[in-house]
């Protein structure tokens, strides 16, 4: 009877008593694991918080600024179109401020477009990031885009300008002198907004400016909010296109009122950078998470192994396996709570981090933005993970070791010259007693090496893109906008000019009505560089080369046919002969969509009264800056600034380095820990080896063989895997931007990885080797 009562008490209170005993014995080890797991594992939900802030920066900004659904600029000579806009089908609201083009006084020749008026509040409301909004009564105060602020028109600037007339716009291709009124712009604020450019000028004036200069603009900007009907966009587009057709403008060649849809057309530059960032953060979280679980698992395996005798006693006393595991879960719970609390703290602290890389430029609310929900979920998740790992590791260490059960003997030949090699290879193949299976360790190391290689390779590809403007069709020393033949001829004769290409640009129409930018280049001097990604350049009127972005979007390859529509409406099939990156001068996506021969362009391009020509001038070495400065004094040059798409990616160039460092630290720590724990688990085997007469050097060699057996497969598998992952990822990013997707393989860095991983692993084994040398073999063998 007493026995039955005792058993009853044991079944109910036994796990608690055992848990207390475990805590008394190992509280410090569990607490240390809890702290480490909380701080390191907390980086995973923290990375989620940063990823959320990064990934949503653009969409939050879109909402914060009440981004319009459609926009365009309508020339001043067709006021009827502007008047019709608010009542067009599909339009719920519209704002139609007056628009100007101004020439900045002085040299070099620079133009800027500008709108001014009183925004309705819920349509186009840029977020101020510096300074203030224009005083409603001030006739000269403006705010500028961050891009303008970064390129010289900064806060506090006072800019004398001369406005252009509509006649000036009509003379774009033949030259003009600004004939509008003169005024002064005072920059009082810097504003943040997605999709600056084209119909949303970088300079925005207040109602005071609009009132003071009413009627002097070249037209009106039109910003539209669609209604909630599903076909609002289509109905509005149809009505607007019809209105434009009814009211032709004298400047339709240069100021074509083409509708832009900033909400529905994703900014590829943003998408590419965002994708790169999220993959980077995801990789970071994956590696850190795996590292944290590995360290926790190995630590708890040790605790579980130490508890094997206790489990035998518990079993003898009648405790089931479930009760013993429950006791370990109870014992782990306090440390798990510590881990959870610390992890939640890490997540909240991550709220101080702005969106990463280029996406910080889209954050509508800079500053502390804690993720309470993620902290509330992440903390308990880590607590649960800690307890789960504690239970699993205890179960793993208590199960009958595979090595203790009969199994097939190795069939490999015994003929090995070196006993250390024989023993090391056998132990490497079988793993440590009651430790992680060797395949798991090798796979973890392979994943780490692959992650490092992929990150380094993507970093090298990113650096190459930023450092080699040729890859995005940049690199010209001067780009003449609206180039005229006398200027071009003069440059061809100039000995400082090494090569010169003249490009004509227009639009080609697809059968579904979509427009594609198209260019044709004529080489006037030398051999201007062309970024040919694959295939060849077009040589016949029915041949065309496409931008890599368009090739990916339309799934076009060399030999495919791209259907276009000629200006007279007849179908025109163009054969794709290559992928090429051709410069584009407007603020649109990087690179023209299509490159044709001049005859091919004439066959498919929307006709213009006068061709829009751009000259790309490449100077002899050392003469570029002087030539560009000389030209800028009298001609309009296109800014040679890095395009937004590349600039966004350039903001990420530090990210691969940081990520590589994190990967090296986390993966290196995990591998070192794994090797040290593995060596400790093999202390008995090493002691037996010593007893057989092995010298300390042979014991060291055996441990080195074990390390090499993990590191070499990790390198052999991880390097090609990492390069493959980098190739896939970079192709995604590069084609989204519009450049070639081939990777830059950092041979030196990869050679370093190949050499350093095995060498580092071997070096690490000197630590347990020294420990074993100090420790008598009898201590490891315990009871003989």
């Amino acid at each position: 009877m007493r026995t039955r009562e005792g058993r009853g008490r044991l079944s109910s209170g036994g796990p608690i008593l055992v848990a207390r005993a475990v805590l008394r014995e190992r509280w410090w080890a569990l607490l240390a694991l809890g702290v480490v797991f909380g701080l390191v594992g907390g980086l995973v939900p923290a990375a989620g918080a940063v990823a959320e802030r990064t990934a949503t920066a653009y969409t939050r900004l879109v909402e914060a600024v009440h981004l319009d659904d459609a926009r365009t600029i309508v020339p001043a000579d067709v006021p009827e179109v502007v008047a019709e806009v608010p009542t067009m089908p599909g339009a719920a609201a519209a704002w139609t401020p007056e628009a100007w083009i101004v020439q900045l006084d002085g040299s070099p020749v620079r133009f800027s477009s500008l709108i001014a008026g009183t925004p309705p509040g819920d349509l186009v409301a840029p977020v101020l990031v510096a300074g203030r909004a224009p005083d409603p009564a001030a006739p000269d105060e403006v705010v500028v885009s961050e891009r303008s602020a970064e390129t010289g028109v900064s806060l506090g600037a006072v800019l004398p300008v001369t406005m252009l007339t509509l006649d000036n716009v009509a003379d774009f291709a033949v030259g003009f002198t600004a004939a509008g009124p003169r005024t002064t712009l005072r920059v009082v604020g810097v504003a943040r907004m997605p999709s600056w450019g084209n119909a949303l000028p970088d300079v925005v004036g207040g109602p005071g400016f609009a009132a003071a200069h009413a009627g002097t603009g070249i037209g009106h900007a039109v910003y539209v909010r669609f209604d909630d009907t599903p076909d609002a966009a289509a109905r509005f587009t149809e009505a607007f296109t019809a209105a434009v057709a009814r009211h032709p403008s004298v400047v339709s060649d240069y100021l074509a009122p083409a509708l832009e849809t900033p909400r529905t057309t994703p900014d590829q530059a943003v998408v590419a950078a965002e994708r790169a960032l999220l993959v980077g953060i995801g990789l970071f979280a994956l590696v850190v998470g795996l590292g944290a679980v590995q360290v926790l698992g190995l630590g708890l395996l040790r605790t579980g192994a130490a508890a094997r005798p206790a489990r035998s006693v518990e079993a003898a006393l009648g405790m089931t396996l479930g009760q013993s595991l429950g006791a370990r879960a109870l014992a782990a719970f306090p440390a798990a709570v510590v881990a959870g609390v610390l992890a939640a703290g890490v997540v909240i602290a991550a709220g101080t981090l702005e969106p990463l890389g280029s996406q910080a430029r889209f954050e509508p609310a800079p500053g502390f933005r804690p993720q309470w929900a993620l902290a509330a979920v992440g903390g308990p998740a880590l607590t649960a993970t800690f307890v789960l790992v504690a239970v699993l590791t205890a179960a793993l260490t208590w199960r009958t070791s595979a090595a203790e059960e009969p199994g097939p003997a190795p069939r490999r030949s015994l003929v090995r010259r070196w006993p250390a090699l024989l023993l090391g290879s056998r132990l490497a193949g079988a793993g440590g007693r009651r430790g992680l299976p060797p395949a798991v360790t090798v796979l973890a190391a392979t994943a780490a090496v692959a992650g490092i290689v992929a990150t380094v390779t993507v970093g090298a590809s990113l650096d190459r893109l930023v450092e080699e403007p040729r890859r995005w069709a940049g690199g010209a020393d001067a780009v003449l906008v609206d180039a005229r033949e006398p200027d071009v001829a003069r440059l061809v004769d100039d000995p400082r000019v090494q090569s010169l290409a003249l490009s004509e640009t227009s639009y080609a129409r697809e059968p579904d009505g979509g427009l594609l930018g198209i260019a044709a280049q004529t080489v006037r001097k030398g051999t201007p560089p062309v970024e040919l990604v694959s295939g060849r350049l077009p040589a016949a009127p029915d041949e065309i080369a496409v931008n890599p972005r368009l090739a990916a979007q339309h799934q076009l390859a060399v030999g495919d046919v791209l259907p276009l529509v000629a200006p007279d409406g007849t179908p025109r099939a163009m054969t794709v002969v290559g992928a090429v990156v051709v410069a584009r001068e407007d603020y649109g996506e990087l690179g023209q969509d299509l490159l044709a021969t001049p005859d091919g362009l004439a066959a498919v391009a929307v006709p213009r009264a006068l061709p829009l020509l751009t000259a790309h001038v490449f100077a002899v070495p050392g003469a570029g800056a002087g030539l560009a400065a000389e030209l800028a004094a009298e001609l309009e040059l296109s800014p040679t600034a890095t395009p937004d798409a590349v600039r966004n990616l350039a903001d990420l160039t530090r990210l691969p380095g940081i990520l590589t460092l994190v990967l090296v630290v986390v993966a290196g720590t995990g591998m070192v820990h794994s090797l040290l724990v593995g060596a400790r688990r093999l202390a008995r085997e090493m002691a037996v080896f010593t007893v057989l007469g092995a010298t300390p050097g042979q014991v060291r060699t055996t441990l080195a063989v074990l390390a090499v057996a993990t590191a070499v497969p990790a390198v052999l598998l991880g390097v090609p895997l990492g390069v493959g992952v980098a190739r896939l990822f970079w192709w995604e990013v590069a084609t989204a931007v519009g450049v070639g997707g081939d990777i830059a393989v950092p041979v030196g860095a990869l050679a370093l990885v190949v050499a350093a991983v095995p060498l580092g692993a071997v070096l690490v084994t000197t630590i347990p080797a020294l420990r074993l040398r100090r420790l008598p073999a009898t201590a490891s063998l315990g009871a003989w």
Partner: protein
Amino acid sequence: MSVRDPALVVRGLRKTYEAGTAPVRALRGVDLTVRAGEFVALMGPSGCGKSTLLHLLAGLDRPDEGTIALDGTRIEDLAPQRLARLRRRSVGLVFQFFHLIEHMSALENVALAALVAGARPQEATARARDLLDQLGLLDKARELPAALSGGQRQRVAIARALANRPTLLLADEPTGALDSDGAAEVLDLFRRLHALGQTILMVTHSREVADGAQRLVRMRDGRILLDGEVTSGSIEVPAELRAASGPWARP
């Protein structure tokens, strides 16, 4: 070495451990000579210093005082490298719990010792096969230790200890983890080895096992109390030790 040459000479051996707060005087002046070809059983209660003595004789630990001559070589001050070389040449060890490498076959466990001793791979394999054959385990050569019975494992361990043709075979409770059949197997094997001229020093708790030896040495409190020949069922106690009485008297 002739049968009468000493394989092992121990003089004035002392060893003290720091265990917790109090030092433990494990050996308090042990003198022992084992002649080549002798089969010596070392008995004594737990904690009397038997295992410590065995560790010192195997060169796995160092004495505080005294000398150990193995095969005529003083080992107490040898460097670890030289100790290892001496061990691989002159000593074979058999453990109570076998301590076979779990992930190596029986053949590989034996051959490993031969390889460590300097044999070429083919020689090591041949030697291992030969030993396993002699011990009746050739059909188990490819088996992992986990697939063998306790007695079979211990026979593999003995084969491993013999792989380097040791001058001295040290065995610590070789039958302690075996059932009676297994113990009988191992004891019979030791007798056969002794008959072939192998020098053996065996620690055991079992009087029955000790009776299989040629000579019995009893220890207590770090000292040797009794050292005599084992005759059929009794010990021939030397005159100098006949004063020993009390718990050491044969029942």
